[in-house]
């Protein structure tokens, strides 16, 4: 029973990707278009380039920039959100600028980032960190503001100090929404990772895709896009997996019948 539902769930998750791949496979099999080479060609090339060839090393700088930018930006966002929650005056004073920076498309800042940080990887990490900050910040702020007042009364009645209240009430209480913010930050980070490598960069998977297109190696370009899709999906699933585990109490209480978070 349990096993069957697990298989059913897996089937539900993979049927569409499978259908897309099959359609792509047959629709492109006899393709003569230079822009849409047969999927078989792309997969052959992918194995040559990414498994046996050196292309896989392009992933290292990309993932390094992503890790530093995402972790740094999220940390900044969570800390900033907590600060704005704790100091209402600061929140009201910074509210317009925070939303302004949040809606500003981060890629538009690339030239400014180049001017600020030069052409190296610091500029890419900074851009990713900038983009990752805002979803984390706004969700942290919202999550902390949404904590039930009774929880704070309870904490005070039990003799909690400020630090204990932060660790055992505020952070866990806001954690479901902080996690949602971090997931949004991760998605923004992946986008910015690729975008930042497409402008004045010399390494990374974004650079690889753009370079292949520039020299008209369309099949190679497609392999980069496929690898990028797989990496992005894997990161997202890894995040969701960790979230499910860390917030087991949250999903458990919701499943049981709308227990308050």
């Amino acid at each position, binding site marked *: 029973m349990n096993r069957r539902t697990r298989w059913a769930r897996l089937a539900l998750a993979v049927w569409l990707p499978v259908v897309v791949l099959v359609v792509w496979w047959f629709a492109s099999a006899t393709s003569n278009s230079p822009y849409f080479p047969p999927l078989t060609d792309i997969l052959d090339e992918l194995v040559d380039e990414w498994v046996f060839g050196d292309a896989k090393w392009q992933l290292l700088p990309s993932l390094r920039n992503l890790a530093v930018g995402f972790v740094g930006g999220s940390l900044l966002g969570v800390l900033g959100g907590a600060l704005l929650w704790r100091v209402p005056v600061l929140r009201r004073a910074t509210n317009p600028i925070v939303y302004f920076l949040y809606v500003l498309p981060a890629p538009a800042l690339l030239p400014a980032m180049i001017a600020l940080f030069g052409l190296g990887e610091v500029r890419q990490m900074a851009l990713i960190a900038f983009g990752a900050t805002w979803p984390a910040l706004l969700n942290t702020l919202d999550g902390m503001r949404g904590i*039930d007042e*009774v*929880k704070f*009364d*309870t904490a*005070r*009645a*039990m*003799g*909690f*100090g400020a630090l*204990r209240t932060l660790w*055992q*009430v505020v952070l*866990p*209480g806001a*954690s479901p929404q902080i996690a949602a913010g971090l997931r949004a930050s991760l998605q923004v980070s992946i986008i910015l990772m690729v975008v930042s490598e497409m402008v004045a960069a010399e390494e990374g998977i974004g650079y690889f895709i753009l370079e292949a297109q520039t020299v008209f190696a369309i099949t190679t370009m497609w392999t980069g896009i496929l690898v990028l899709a797989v990496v992005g999906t894997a990161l997202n699933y890894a995040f969701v997996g960790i979230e499910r585990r860390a917030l087991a*109490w*949250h999903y*458990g*209480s919701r499943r*049981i019948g709308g*227990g*308050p*978070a």
Partner: protein
Amino acid sequence: MTRTLGATAAGGSAAQEPPVLDVKSLRKVFNAGRPDERTAIDDVSFTIAKGEFVCVVGPSGAGKTTLLRCISGLAAPSSGTVRFEGRDLTAVPDEIGVVFQDYGRSLFPWFTNGRNIALPLRARKVARPERDKRVREVLEAVGLGHVEKQYPWQLSGGMQQRVAIARTLSYRPDLLLMDEPFASVDAQTRFDLEDLILRVRKDAGITVVLVTHDIDEAIYLADRIVVLTGSPSRVREILEVPLGPDRDQVTTRSSEEFLALRKHLLSLVMPQ
């Protein structure tokens, strides 16, 4: 009559000791000096002796919860004094335990029941072995078995309120303050929890102040009842409940004295 009762339960002589709680001319005004100024409590005074079980009743909206917040140290009165064991209240003292109405809001769903109960012990720097021992003790005292590793939301409402009570008992407070603690459970569970709290009070010799809008519950539980007027609250009357230390849901609630008290209380609480 009831004074002796309370003293017996505490196992000492209440007459010489200072009151556990001394409330004098308590007044609480919200939004003072603004157009939406509202007086929740006008003038409330009473004292609670060691070992007593006192219920505070009043019509809904009579500021009962506000009163409980003021006498626990969660909120500061606008004027008047609240003294606990001779000290002025600035925060919630370590010797006061508060049980809130809604267990779903006062328990922390991110911690297991065992961890929830251990929280006040951790805040008081109680060492691990002693903590584990106390968690088991209080779980037994409230009639719950092995629920330490489960989460609050995996239990029924009545069991969750038992966990909340156990959490408050774990640090052995001198005074237990309860804000409509049985209002969110079904009738049968309510009777069980009432008897549980009477037993706990007897075993631990604890002083209890319980706020409720249910006058039957107040008579069944209390040694004395403080009756409040409607908003803004004043003390309407303080009456003794001479029903003896041992109470039983069936016989106590159907006794002559119970019904007489009930009639009298109803006339006080019902709008004229």
